C-alpha cells in the first residue's frame, strides 16, 4: 500500500488539486454545477451528467473581500463565499456554469440574491420545518424545479434511470464514509482524529471521485490491518469528545490539533462536512424525487424549526460513542446555531450529564490562542 501520508495529502490538497482537475474537465466539455450547502441534492446534478463542485468557502481568505459588499456582522462563511465569488479570481467559482443555492439561513438566503448578478443561479426554496405533508410536497416540487433548471441550462434530459444511478453512486459514497469512521473508531490508535478529519472534511471537495473513493477504501484497509502507529497516542483514559456546530473547515483541523494536544480523544464530529451530511441514505426503491427530498429534508440543521433531529442525533451519539464532553462551535453571527446552544446545552448537561462547552469563533487563525486556552481548560476539567 501507498504511504498513509500520501493518501492523506491527496485529501488535504483536495481544493488545490481540484483546479487542475477543473481545467481538464472544462476542456473535455464537462458542465460544472457549483453548490454551497449540504442541502443541495447532488444526485440530481450527477443525473444531469454535470459535476457537482462544492463552493462553500470555510477559509478566511476572502472574508475581507466579502465585507466590501456585505455587512461585517455576518457569518464568516457567507462573507467568504461571496467574497470568493465576487473577487473574480477564484478558479472554482469561475469554473461553475451554474450555481445552486437554497433558502437555508438568513445570511445565505440574502447573499444568494447578489450571486444571481454574477452567474446563472438556481435557488431552491427550503421549507423551515422537516415534518408535515405540505412541507414534503413543497420540497419534492423543488427537486423537480432543480431538474428542469439543470435540463434547460445544460441541455440534457434527466431520466429516472440516471437519477437512480446517481442515487446508488451517492449512497455508496455515504456508506464508504460511514465504514471509514466506524472502523476508525473501532481501531483506535491507527489514525489520529486530525488525520481522520483531513480525510472526511475534504472528501466532498475532491473532484476525482473514483480515486477519492479508492483512497477512502485504502485507508479503511489500512485501519483494519495496520498496527498502531508509533506517533499515534494511546487514548485509554482520555476524555471522549463529540464536536458539533457550524462548519469550520481548515479552522476545525487546527482546533482538532489543539484538542488532541490537550489530551482529548475526538470520537465523533457532527458537522456538515462529516456526519451531518453523510448520515442516512436515499431510499433506492422509492420514486427518486420523493426519495431524495425525504433524505435531504431530514438533515439536522438548525435552520429547521423545531430541529428535533439534531437533539435526537446528539443524544444517540453521546450514548453510542460514550461521550464525556461536547464542544459546540458557533460562527459569530450564525443566529440559528447560536440560539440552539441553549437546548443543546440543556440536553447534554441536564439529561445526559455530560460536559458541554459552546465556543463562538470566526474563521481567522488569529484567535487560536484563546481557543487553545478554553479548549484545554475544558479537557482538563473532564479529566478530573
Amino acid at each position, binding site marked *: 500500500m501507498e504511504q498513509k501520508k500520501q493518501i492523506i495529502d491527496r485529501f488535504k490538497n483536495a481544493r488545490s488539486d481540484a483546479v487542475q482537475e477543473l481545467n481538464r474537465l472544462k476542456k473535455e466539455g464537462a458542465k460544472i454545477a457549483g453548490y454551497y450547502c449540504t442541502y443541495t441534492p447532488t444526485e440530481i446534478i450527477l443525473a444531469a451528467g454535470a459535476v457537482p463542485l462544492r463552493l462553500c468557502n470555510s477559509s478566511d481568505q476572502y472574508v475581507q473581500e466579502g465585507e466590501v*459588499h*456585505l*455587512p461585517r*456582522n*455576518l457569518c464568516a462563511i457567507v462573507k467568504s463565499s461571496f467574497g470568493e465569488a465576487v473577487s473574480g479570481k477564484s478558479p472554482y467559482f469561475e469554473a461553475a456554469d451554474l450555481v445552486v443555492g437554497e*433558502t437555508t*439561513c*438568513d*445570511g445565505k*438566503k*440574502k*447573499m*444568494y*440574491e*447578489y450571486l444571481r448578478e454574477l452567474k446563472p443561479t438556481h*435557488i431552491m*426554496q*427550503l*421549507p*423551515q*420545518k422537516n415534518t*408535515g405533508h*405540505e*412541507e414534503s*410536497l*413543497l420540497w419534492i*416540487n*423543488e427537486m423537480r*424545479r432543480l431538474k428542469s433548471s439543470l435540463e434547460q441550462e445544460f441541455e440534457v434530459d434527466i431520466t429516472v434511470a440516471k437519477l437512480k444511478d446517481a442515487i446508488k453512486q451517492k449512497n455508496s459514497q455515504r456508506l464508504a464514509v460511514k465504514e471509514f469512521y466506524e472502523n476508525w473508531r473501532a481501531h483506535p490508535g491507527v489514525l489520529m482524529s486530525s488525520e481522520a478529519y483531513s480525510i472526511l472534511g475534504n472528501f466532498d471537495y475532491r473532484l476525482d471521485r473514483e480515486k477519492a473513493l479508492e483512497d477512502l477504501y485504502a485507508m479503511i484497509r489500512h485501519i483494519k490491518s495496520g498496527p498502531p502507529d508509533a506517533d499515534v497516542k494511546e487514548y485509554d483514559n482520555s476524555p471522549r469528545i463529540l464536536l458539533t456546530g457550524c462548519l469550520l473547515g481548515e479552522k476545525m483541523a487546527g482546533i482538532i490539533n489543539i484538542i488532541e494536544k490537550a489530551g482529548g480523544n475526538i470520537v465523533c464530529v457532527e458537522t456538515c462536512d462529516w456526519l451531518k451530511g453523510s448520515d442516512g441514505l436515499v431510499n433506492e426503491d422509492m420514486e427518486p424525487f420523493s426519495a431524495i427530498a425525504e433524505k435531504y429534508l431530514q438533515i439536522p440543521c*438548525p*435552520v429547521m*424549526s*423545531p430541529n428535533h433531529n439534531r437533539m435526537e442525533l446528539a443524544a444517540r451519539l453521546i450514548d453510542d460513542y460514550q461521550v464525556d464532553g461536547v464542544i459546540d462551535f458557533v460562527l*459569530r*453571527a450564525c*443566529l*440559528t446555531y*447560536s*440560539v*440552539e*446552544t*441553549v*437546548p443543546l446545552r440543556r440536553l447534554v448537561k441536564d439529561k445526559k450529564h455530560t460536559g458541554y462547552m459552546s465556543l463562538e469563533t470566526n474563521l481567522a487563525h488569529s484567535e487560536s490562542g484563546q481557543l487553545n486556552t478554553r479548549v484545554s481548560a475544558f479537557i482538563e476539567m473532564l479529566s478530573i
Partner: protein
Amino acid sequence: MDFTPMLNEFAEARQNGFILTKELKDQGKKVVGVYCGFAPWEIITASGAVAVWLCGMSDTTIPDAEQHLPANLCPLIKSSYGFAITGKCPYFYFSDMLIGETTCDGKKKMYEFLSDLKPMHIMHLHQNPKAEGSYRYYRSEMVKLKEALEKELDVEITDDAIRDRIKLRNRERKALRNFYEMGKMVPPPIYGFEMRKVIQATLFIADKETEIEKVEKLTNAIKEDYEKNGSAVPATAKRIMVTGSPLGDATENIIKIIEDNGGVVVCFENCSAIKDKEDGVQEAGDPFDALTTRYIKSGCACMSPNDHRMDMLSHYIDEYKVDGVVDVILQTCHTYNVETKRVKDVVNQKNIPYLNLETDYSQETIGQLTTRIAAFLEMIN
C-alpha cells in the same frame, strides 16, 4: 380646530390598552398575542379574540433575555423574549395564546422557547413570494392558523366572520392611508414623529370602529387647520423617507434627531406603516385566497427575493417627493442588513442620497447618530 388633544390621546393608547385589555379579559374575551404581520389579523380576530401586539420595543428587558439568548441578536427579539420571561408586559400576561411566524432566523429560533411559556402556534412561511408552490403553502398555513385558533380557543371561525374582519380591516387601512398620505403635502401638516405615534397606537386599540372614527376626525381636523393656519413644518425642511427594520420605541430617537436637524419624515416604509396598510384585501370570494393574495406581497426582507419592497420604495420616493432616504437597521438583523445594498442602488438611481444607520435599542449611540444624521441632512442642501 386644535388637534393636539386628539394626537395626545393616540399617544396614550398603549398604556390605556392595558386596562382595556384587562376589562375585556374580565368580560370573558380571549386574548391572542402576536409578533408579526404575516399571520393575518383578520383570521385571528374572526375568532372573537382580541389581538395584542407583543413585539418588544424597549431595552429594559434585554439583559434578562441575554441570560438565555446570544447577545449578538436583534434587540427586538431579545426585548420581546425578555418581556415574556420577566412578566413585565401586561399584554403578554393577558395572552391566552401566542402566534409566531418563521420569518427571520432569530425570531424563528426564539419562538422555540416561547412555546414553553404559553400555548403557541407557529405559522410556517414560504421564503420566496414568487416561487411556484409558495401560494399553496402559505394558504395551507392560513387554514392551519384558523384551525389552531379554533382548537385552542374552543370556537368556530366561519368564512363570513373572516370576511367581516376583512372589511373592517380594509376600512382601517383606508383611514390610516388617508392619514399618513398627508405626508405627501408640501410642507406636510405635521411632523413624522407625531404621525408615527398615531400609526403605532393603532396596534394597541382593540375597538377598530372607534379607532377608525377617531383617525378620520383627526385627519380632517389636521387638514382644516392646515388650510387656515398652514403647517408648523417649514417648507424648507428636507423630506425624508425612513425604511428598514421594524422601529422600536428607542429608534424613535432617530426620527427625533432627523426632525431636530432640519428634516421632516414624510414617509415610513416600515412594518405597521406603509408596508402593512397600502393594499387592501379582496372582500368577495374565498377569504383564504383573498388573504393569501394580499399577505404574500408583504415586502419584508425575510422574503427572497424581496422585489416588492424595491418597487414600493421607488414608487414612494416619487409620490412623497422624498429628498433623502434613511435606512435604519437593527443590530444583527441580517435580512434587512444584507438588503441595504439593494435599497441603496434603488435610491441612488433616483439621484437622491441614502443613509444607512445600524442601531440597537440603547441610548448610548445617540451622540454618534446625531452627528451622522446632521451631516446627512446638511449634505442634502
